[in-house]
């Protein structure tokens, strides 16, 4: 089986937000929607030992998503490969899933016409991969630091498997039982590795 995941290497991310721009462009997003903000807690440490880390985010494509079972229309769904996505034509815009996602990774645009407001979220570039099975998600392809790595965790030879099996990775809010599938290689206080 194929199970797509992403590994995000925080020690490589320089906070340039290229992935954010790439995603907006690929998905032609309205101005008030961002699928993958790159957030930072700001400068840490005491001068001169200061550093700063970045957390590139996006939908965690949870193995046990909160947002799918609560959807009353069946618009919110998960593929066998783990990709969580929304069928825009089926979504009635009730925003239950938006309220259910603990990561805040779903949103409704308010700059589109009033009764044309469905829920959007990162699709792991489902459309792009469907058009070309060899293609990576656009944010991954765009990242010039190779901070985002996409692949099949069920394939032991994939880069993501190797990284996850050999490196210390962390995931966000695992205590909620969502089993998120974005694996972060944390930056150890900003030191070069």
């Amino acid at each position: 089986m194929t199970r797509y995941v992403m590994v995000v290497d925080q020690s490589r991310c320089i906070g340039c937000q290229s992935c954010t721009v790439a995603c907006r462009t690929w998905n032609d997003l309205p101005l008030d929607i961002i699928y993958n903000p790159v957030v930072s807690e700001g400068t840490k440490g005491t001068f001169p030992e200061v550093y700063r880390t970045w957390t590139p985010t996006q939908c965690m494509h949870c193995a046990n998503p909160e947002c799918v079972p609560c959807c009353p229309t069946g618009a919110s769904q998960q593929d066998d490969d783990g990709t969580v996505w929304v069928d825009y034509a089926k979504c009635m815009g009730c925003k239950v899933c938006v309220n259910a996602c603990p990561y805040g990774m779903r949103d409704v645009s308010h700059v589109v016409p009033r009764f044309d407001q469905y829920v959007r979220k990162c699709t792991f570039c489902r459309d792009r991969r469907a058009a070309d099975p060899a293609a990576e998600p656009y944010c991954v392809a765009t990242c010039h630091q190779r901070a985002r790595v996409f692949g099949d965790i069920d394939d032991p030879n994939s880069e993501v498997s190797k990284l996850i099996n050999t490196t210390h990775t962390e995931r966000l809010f695992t205590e909620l039982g969502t089993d998120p599938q974005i694996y972060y290689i944390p930056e150890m206080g900003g030191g070069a590795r």
Partner: protein
Amino acid sequence: MKHHYWEAPIVIYLFLGGLGGGIFFLASVFDLIVAPGAGPLFFAPVFFALAALALGCFFLVFELGQPPVFWRVFTTKTAIIKWGAVLLTVAMICGFVWWASYLPLLGWQWAAGLAGLLAPVRSLMIGLAGVAGFGIMVYTGVMLSTLKAHAFWATPALPVLFTVSALSTACAAIALSLGGAVDAAGLGLLVEELIREIVHEVDIVLVIAEIVVLLVMVLSFYGAGNVTAQKVAARWVRGRTAPLFWGGMVGGGLLLPLALYLAGAGTAASEVVAPILVLCGGLLLRYLCVYSDERAPIPGEERYYERLKSSDTRFMTAWKQGENKY
């Protein structure tokens, strides 16, 4: 951080849903068990229940991003909202059939034939509407409490609170409308007085229960909730929301009507003012809860979204309404 997507229409929907469901439930209990034959007295309350549910559904559908797709809620199997929609539909259809069977009470003789036709299924209809009504009351709270991304909602106390509040507001609405549209005399008047008295006593118990559940929920979050829930509880107990919570909800919506119920029994203060306050309290409770939708931020997320100050209205207006719309 704030994670706010549901607005006032959802608040009104949750309130009206609970209210309508509660009236159906109580009407069925009285009509079938406590005072069989008291049906006509509930003609007006059931009308208000139907109106409440219909209006609630209108607000719900109005709040949807794509209202024409709403029928799809009946196509899924397990989603909790689907059950809400089914219960609402059952309650409204059965409630309406029951209500229509009493239409001649309005002096509409043309409805006599229809009423005669529907009379045999009255008990069944109010029974089904009562069960569905009970489900709606519970569902409004369960729906919020399953969304555990919002720490303040994710407590079993919330469905209990919403159910108690729904029953309490239903008692208030019944107290205000019982016997409307019928000229009760003799025995009927006695039954009406009896029901009024029971509803009065029951609402006293419910208001006390609501105070207890509300305080237990808020104060336990305040004392021992997780960081997010604790922050919300602190906002309620001693922050920005405190005047509305203590003054509006606890004072005006619960303690004051309780005092009026107890001290003013038999006067307009107890029979009109207190129920109205209870109804306002119910609406306020839904408002306070729906607007307590904080979620735990991903480290750095708050900073990210706060970079653009909402006070920068010139930019925001240009951004949202300018030429560069998409």
